[in-house]
């Protein structure tokens, strides 16, 4: 870890740094296809994604289905192997580490999932679910010690008093409570990075804010969070930075408020215009794109968005734009992948 830890400028490296990540899944070929030697097709889930996250920062990966945000998270967590690119955690390259070498790292990076009804083993009491990570990593030499850590984690997740919850089974808890148990189980090891895959999309509206505010509180205490969501409003409200993904690439990235108030990429602009607003008097004209996101097996040539882009030009068909900061950006860290921005 020490060799790569110090960068050229001597500054601390970001907590998480992802560079040029590429992840592809081969599609199963039929027997006929294999025999006829048809070309092996791939799902190009992640096609060159780079971003970094600092402690105490929440980055929202926003996009529609097929954009690669979930695969990016799984690749970062090393649940899936990347094909190209680097993942650096605290300066250390973890992209090619074996699973045995990754084990101690699992204490530092954790993940919570979308479905609170499936996240918990129905046979485990809350106590067992939250204590499991401790058992796996051999923390706590006695049941009493572990119980203490479990209770602390439950309190941290907003389940107070913890005694009320320790012996419950998941089916006795509401969706919001289950998600908090999942958060407690993730936090009990004291990780530095948390990936949250659509943490509230399956919860009732009245409960969502509580979970999001909990995540916000954890963030203020120093936790770095990468939140995957399709909901721009949630991202705008709770994230520090937003990265908009389309067909495996980040097409726009910047401070949350900037991306939402001054979107520079035509896709982002369209997305923002179609997000329904709370206020019935809001008269934003939705810019509805035709068709749907193409199949990630066949990525368009040039700019991947150009077939649906309302302002596409001739050159967009051949140039694959890089993420760069345009002149119209109000913030130095606001970047966009569009030659017309």
């Amino acid at each position, binding site marked *: 870890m020490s060799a790569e830890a110090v960068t050229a400028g001597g500054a601390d490296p970001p907590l998480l740094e992802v560079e040029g990540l590429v992840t592809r899944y081969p599609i199963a070929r039929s027997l006929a296809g294999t025999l006829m030697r048809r070309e092996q097709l791939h799902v190009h889930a992640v096609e060159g994604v780079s971003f970094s996250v600092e402690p105490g920062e929440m980055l929202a990966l926003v996009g529609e289905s097929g954009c690669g945000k979930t695969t990016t998270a799984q690749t970062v967590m090393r649940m899936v192997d990347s094909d190209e690119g680097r993942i650096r955690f605290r300066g250390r390259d973890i992209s090619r580490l074996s699973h045995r070498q990754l084990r101690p790292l699992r204490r530092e990076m954790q993940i919570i999932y979308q479905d609170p009804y499936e996240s918990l083993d129905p046979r485990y009491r809350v106590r067992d679910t939250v204590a499991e990570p401790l058992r796996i990593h051999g923390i706590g030499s006695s049941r009493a010690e572990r119980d203490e850590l479990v209770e602390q984690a439950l309190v941290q997740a907003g389940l107070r008093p913890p005694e009320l919850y320790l012996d419950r089974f998941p089916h006795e808890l509401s969706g919001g409570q289950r998600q908090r148990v999942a958060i407690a189980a993730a936090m009990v090891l004291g990780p530095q990075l948390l990936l949250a895959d659509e943490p509230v999309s399956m919860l009732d509206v009245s*409960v969502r804010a509580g979970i999001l505010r909990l995540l916000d509180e954890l963030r203020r205490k120093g936790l770095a969070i990468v939140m995957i969501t399709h909901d721009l409003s949630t991202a*705008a409200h709770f994230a520090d930075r937003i990265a908009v993904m389309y067909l495996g690439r980040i097409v726009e990235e910047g401070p949350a408020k900037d991306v*939402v108030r001054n979107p520079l990429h035509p896709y982002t602009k*369209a997305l923002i215009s179609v*997000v329904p*607003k709370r*206020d019935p*008097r809001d008269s934003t004209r939705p810019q509805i794109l035709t068709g749907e996101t193409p199949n990630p097996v066949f990525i368009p040539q040039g700019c991947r968005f150009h077939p649906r882009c309302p302002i596409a030009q001739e050159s967009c068909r051949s140039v694959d734009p890089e993420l760069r900061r345009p002149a119209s950006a109000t913030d130095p860290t606001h970047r966009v992948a569009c030659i017309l921005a």
Partner: protein
Amino acid sequence: MTAEPVLKVEDLHVWFDIDGGELHAVQGLDLDLRPGERLGLVGESGCGKTTTILALMGLLPPSASVSGRVLLDGEDVLAKGEETVSPHRWRDIAMVFQGAMNAFNPVKTVGSQIVEPMELHGIASGRAARAQAAELLDLVGITGSRGDRYPHEFSGGMRQRAAIAMALACSPKVLLADEPTTALDVMVQAQILELLVRLTDELGLSMVLVTHDLPVVAQVCGRASVMYAGKVAESGPMETLFHRPRHPYTRMLFQATPDLYGDDEVKSIPGVPPRLDRPVPGCAFQPRCDSAFARCVDQEPRLRSVGEAQIAACHLNDVPAAVLP
């Protein structure tokens, strides 16, 4: 003032048999839908909104008991249960179910599945039916010839459109849509909502949109009823619900929804809805309400008029203006 309602629901109750008792899922709901109107029925899981529209279609399971009047163009379709409902089902009132896009028969073509209700209800058959099905597909934005394809060849958004086409097969007057865009991407959602708006405006269709998503209702519907624990908590024009809510649940629900540009604090509502297998004393929302007072604990508030076309069931509306939040 306005035309006679095409659909009028009076005092609807639904009970479900459960182990050791009954669940009172819908508790005296009133609703009226005007021709060409888009009415929202908003609430969270368990509030009874899906049960309500299933009751209107007569699609409740044998474990359910129903009471109330459902007047379709003045005729009570619930009068004799299945006997009086089934002639109207799909012909006058049709439904797009939750997750309809996943409910297609995978071994039949999409077109044939749209033809099916036509033939079942004696609207058309054979070539004429297939032609009408193709027209319907065109109407919902899918090229008519694609009716020969199978469901797995359609994307999620297209399947949802096909489900809407299926609901319109017998040219109903009323369309009930249960969470039509919940599982869809935001861009596809916008396309579907635009379609629903176009259908109601151009065809004179009346629609009840059931959803938990407040901004969707705000964008598409003119009026909405907010449900909580089996009852209507508040009902009125969308603008009034947002700018001048007269029930704490409505207000808190909006407050719990993050807004794209707004900076106001997003707050969740603590607690959980009450169990409906036993009578709830006083106001059902009181344990979670931020403005509850003594009367709320043991007296159930009644729905009453609180403004122009607005009704709410809250004791705060009976209290002098000075005390209102």
